[in-house]
């Protein structure tokens, strides 16, 4: 259906609904708007890329309409031109997303673009994340059906969005979930809550390769179980994918699998968390030749901690779909008020350790002379850990209210980061990071935040500091509730092994918020880096100039 006819149907349908209603119920219109613009000034010292058009802007606006059981929406997007760091195939403007949906008691029908996740996403997740420039929505049909209480069935079919076009493959999926406590009367009051689910997803892509007989239909299965009782929550999912040669795995005809186990135990004032994830050849896209963040059908969550402070997030882990095994441990503890360590207002402690290694791989050698290319790839022992370290993170966080006016946070972090594996450049980086963050509230509405961060890398055997060397950052942020903020921040790369690159990356910013309307203006230099959400990352290039963001929800 083309855009115009879709909008006409939408208008017509709403019109018909209006005329049938005796009371004048016009339904509800809502939406949002977001604009991000940036100017790019030449700056060879920080390797800022210069562009001819000087200023670029990414804009999004959603409009949703709901009336009773009916809802519909469109999203307008404009990339004029696409800001640096986002895929330039976004250039242009138009309707990027439109859908209509009808819900009755136990059936929901959606046509158009939709976002959906089966279980943890190991074999299926479509989502959007504007900070990453990801939108892999399916354009097609989704049915959700709840035949009896506690049972939910979802079926879908569609093509995936690829910037302004569609990927070549067709994606089909089915998911079923049963909550035993809701479905069976005798378990309604049981203390143990059990939820079981399973999914099947298949993609179809025509094989045009003249030599190899690539599978045109590739299926993936997954099963999940969640059990919780009192303060204990255990959830796990196992996924399996048939052979799926792709540019990600070097076109080998090998099956893939994934296992995710999350366990937490917590009660008031204390919490423990353990996550385990093993992935083997689990890249799953609706185009076997797609790369970077394009056309992913599944989502492989990194289980390492997401850090919010700038330097703690400087070397972030990104999921390795071809193979990784790792674990994450975390402790949360609240020192009570009036205890020795808690003091007058109490104190919060968070300790986290995570490590991710390669998986063990033994290459399959069909003939030792290598006359025939190896199409089987490798075998992998499920229970052994590979020798190569990808990532290690140990950190301790303390949060304390010192007085009515003063709050403080302190963080120490040690990190091993295999930059060669994760970003494809440099090698291993070992970094120590320290953070002190104070917020002083000097009136009931005004506060000053002072944030100090330091990052120190180890020296390599040649005596040179690793990667970009040492950094110091100071941020001063003044807020006047509920409307204003002003901040100055400087990240100083004082320990860069190259003297000419010991640069100050300063940023001055100010913003105004009123209700759900927000405007912010920044000026300064942005260092090159990567920004990650959920183990999926995007490069942020170095830049120098003004940036403006405006957002509104209505």
């Amino acid at each position, binding site marked *: 259906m083309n855009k115009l006819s879709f909008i006409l149907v939408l208008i017509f349908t709403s019109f018909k609904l209006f005329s049938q209603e005796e009371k004048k119920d016009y339904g509800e219109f809502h939406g949002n708007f977001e604009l991000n613009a940036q100017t790019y000034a030449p700056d060879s010292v920080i390797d800022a890329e210069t562009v001819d058009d000087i200023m670029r802007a990414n804009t999004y606006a959603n409009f949703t309409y709901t009336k009773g059981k009916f809802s519909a929406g469109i999203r307008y997007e404009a990339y004029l031109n696409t800001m640096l760091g986002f895929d330039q195939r976004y250039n242009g403007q138009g309707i990027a997303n439109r859908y209509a949906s009808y819900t009755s008691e136990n059936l929901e029908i959606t046509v158009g673009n939709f976002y959906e996740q089966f279980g943890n996403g190991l074999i299926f997740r479509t989502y959007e994340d504007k900070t990453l420039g990801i939108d892999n929505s399916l354009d097609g049909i989704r049915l959700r059906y709840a035949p009896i209480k506690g049972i939910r069935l979802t079926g879908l079919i569609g093509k995936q969005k690829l910037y302004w076009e569609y990927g070549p493959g067709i994606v089909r999926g089915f998911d079923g979930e049963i909550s035993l406590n809701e479905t069976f009367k005798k378990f309604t009051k049981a203390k143990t809550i059990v939820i079981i689910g399973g999914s099947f997803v298949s993609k179809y892509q025509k094989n045009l390769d003249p030599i190899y007989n690539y599978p045109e239909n590739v299926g993936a299965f997954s099963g999940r179980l969640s059990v919780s009782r009192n303060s204990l929550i255990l959830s796990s999912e196992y996924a399996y994918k048939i052979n799926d040669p792709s540019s990600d795995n070097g076109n080998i005809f090998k099956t893939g699998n994934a296992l995710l186990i999350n366990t937490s135990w917590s009660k008031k004032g204390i919490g423990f968390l353990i996550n385990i994830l093993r992935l083997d050849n689990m890249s799953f896209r609706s185009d076997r030749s797609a790369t970077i963040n394009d056309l992913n059908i599944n989502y492989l969550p990194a289980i390492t901690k997401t850090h919010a402070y700038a330097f703690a997030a400087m070397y972030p882990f990104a999921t390795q779909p071809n193979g990784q095994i790792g674990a994450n441990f975390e402790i*949360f503890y609240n020192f009570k008020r009036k205890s020795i360590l808690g003091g007058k207002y109490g104190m919060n402690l968070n300790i986290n350790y995570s490590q991710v290694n390669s998986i063990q791989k033994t290459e399959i050698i069909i003939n030792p002379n290598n006359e025939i290319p190896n199409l089987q790839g490798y075998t992998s022992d499920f229970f052994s850990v590979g020798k190569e370290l990808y990532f290690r993170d140990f950190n301790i966080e303390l949060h304390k209210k010192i007085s009515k006016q003063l709050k403080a946070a302190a963080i120490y972090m040690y990190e091993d980061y295999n930059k060669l594996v994760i970003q494809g450049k440099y090698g291993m980086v070992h970094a120590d990071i320290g953070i002190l963050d104070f917020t002083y509230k000097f009136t009931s509405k005004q506060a000053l935040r002072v944030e100090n961060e330091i990052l120190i890398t180890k020296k390599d055997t040649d005596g040179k500091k690793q990667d970009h060397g040492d950094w110091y950052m100071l941020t001063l942020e003044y807020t006047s509730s509920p409307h204003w903020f002003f901040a100055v921040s400087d990240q100083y790369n004082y320990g860069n092994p190259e003297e000419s690159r010991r640069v100050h990356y300063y940023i001055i910013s100010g913003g105004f918020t009123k209700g759900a309307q*927000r405007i912010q203006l920044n000026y300064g230099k942005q260092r090159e880096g990567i920004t990650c959400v959920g183990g999926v990352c995007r490069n942020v290039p170095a830049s120098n100039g003004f940036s403006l963001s405006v957002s509104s929800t209505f």
Partner: protein
Amino acid sequence: MIFGFSQNNKNTDLPSVDIKTLTGETFNTSDIKNPDGPIFLSFWATWCKPCIKELIAVDENYADWQEETGLKVYAVSIDDAKSMSRVAPFVNGRAWEFEILLDPNSDFKRAMNVINVPHSFILDKNGKIIWQHNSYSPGDEDEIYKILKKAASENNSDNQ
């Protein structure tokens, strides 16, 4: 701004979206209700510093505000599969007593047209959205308190 007219089939401004509880059970967002007073509904994530500051500020005042206005707080985490399992120990570790919900694929967030977290809403006793705010600065709790008190007094006058 809300253009809501006679709500026949539901008594809330909130859309009907299936999200999850901490134990993985399905929860429909039209069931976010509080017959005793206003609702503070906050979208947050474990990796969002200002979100946590806002919830700490609300937590510090929760007992007083509850007594005074009958308030109920719903904190909807948009942590995805990556950090979703972190929410329960995180919340308990901080001894928060809010109603916690999980929105791992941002379905509810999208239906509410939320762009960034923290984004908070206040609903009155009748389920009408009467206030919303994006971002958090220390001291915002004063404004939240003002709106809650207003919502509670209007509710009382409705009953008379």
